[in-house]
């Protein structure tokens, strides 16, 4: 295990600038979603939830992917800082996963009158992933801090990323046999401006996730540094 300190800020501190740009973009995304994009022909206003729901889902996938990437780096390079980065990425992914479930179920209620639809593959997949990654925290907090916990958390994060396509396939297979679909939903046809609103929202939400990731990482590193300082001063 190399001895690079885990608490050196990896890259420069342009966090405030990042946060400002994110806030601006999120505001822009809302403006686009509500005022620029035309109302959807058949779904009406409830279609506007789509502009946040799908980008949040895509961002959750990105967080889980990022966590697996950092986990791979930890196992390969054995540098302590990747453990913290992988953990924070999983934490972000779980938050956005929960948001996906929340906004998704509100959208389902608005469009089809049911809070939960087993036929909605995306939602079911996120439910499975949410259960999986919640277990990540149960596992992580039940092992004593150290190289062993870092390795095990990393391996589990790798399993998560493999589980995504496998579960998606399973849910699709289950769809027409075990749970015949009740509501068919063809992909939302998007006009030019709708697609633009979607893209702005996607960039905004991704940046939001990255900002929160950097904020939480900074917080966790501060914690670690302070703990070391306290130890140095009190022993």
């Amino acid at each position, binding site marked *: *295990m190399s*001895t690079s300190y885990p608490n050196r800020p990896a890259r420069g501190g342009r966090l405030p600038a990042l946060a400002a740009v994110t806030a601006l973009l999120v505001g822009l995304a809302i403006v686009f979603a509500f005022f620029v994009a035309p109302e959807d022909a058949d779904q009406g206003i409830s279609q506007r939830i789509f502009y946040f729901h799908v980008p949040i889902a895509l961002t959750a996938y990105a967080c889980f992917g990022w966590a697996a990437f950092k986990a791979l780096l930890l196992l390969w390079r*054995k540098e302590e800082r990747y453990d913290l980065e992988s953990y924070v990425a999983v934490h972000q992914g779980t938050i956005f996963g929960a948001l996906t479930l929340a906004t998704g179920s509100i959208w389902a209620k608005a469009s089809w009158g049911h809070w939960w639809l087993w036929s909605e593959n995306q939602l079911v997949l996120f439910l499975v992933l949410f259960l999986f990654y919640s277990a990540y925290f149960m596992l992580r907090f039940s092992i*004593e*801090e*150290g*190289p062993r916990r870092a390795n095990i958390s990393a391996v589990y994060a790798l399993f998560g990323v493999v589980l995504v396509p496998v579960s998606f396939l399973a849910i699709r297979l289950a769809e027409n046999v075990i749970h015949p679909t009740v509501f068919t939903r063809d992909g939302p046809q998007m006009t030019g401006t709708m697609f633009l609103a979607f893209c702005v929202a996607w960039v905004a939400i991704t940046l939001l996730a990255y900002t929160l990731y950097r904020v939480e990482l900074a917080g966790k590193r501060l914690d670690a540094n302070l*703990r070391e300082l306290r*130890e140095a001063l009190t022993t």
Partner: protein
Amino acid sequence: MPLGPRGELFRAVPESGLVVIRARALERRFGRKRALRPVDLAVERGQFAVVTGPNGSGKTTLLRLVGGLLAPTRGELEVDVDRGRLGFVGHEALVYRDLTALENLDLYGRLYRVPERRERIGRLLERFDLWDARHERAGTFSRGMLQRLALCRGLLHEPDLLVLDEPFTALDADGAALLDRQLAELAGAVTVLLSTHDPVRVERLATTRLVLG
């Protein structure tokens, strides 16, 4: 013998010979608790290093680090021994309770690629006075017999480096004498890192001493 910054004894940079174990400011933490304060150590091939210190000073942690069972939290550790060429005898015998002594050693013999496995197991069991109990389950062994079985397991594959964590515990008089003879035989040929509460017993053999604070 120069004294280390924290008063522990270690050899200066060894002139000749190959360094088998080198630790620089080696530290290990379990969660918030620091189990091993920064330690420097250098042991050459064929040397007999003795680690002493009160309970909780980190002797076991240091030996498990050298054994490769733990990774350092801070500092560096190089152990120039291939995996499988190291014999580790700790507080636990690392043998299956429901397997007989013979079955345990046979399993380890296969995994450690020991040539002429049966003969070597037979000789070791005899030397450690366990031959008559070879078909009995390890679970029925007394602590002393388990410790002797663990020593057989540790020596089975003729290791280049032998790590012994307080090996004399639970051994009765003739068990300890038996271990003394065994260590005397090995000294010089095999590099040994041994932790103990009563250094006098191995004083004659020791070439390097490390006192943990």
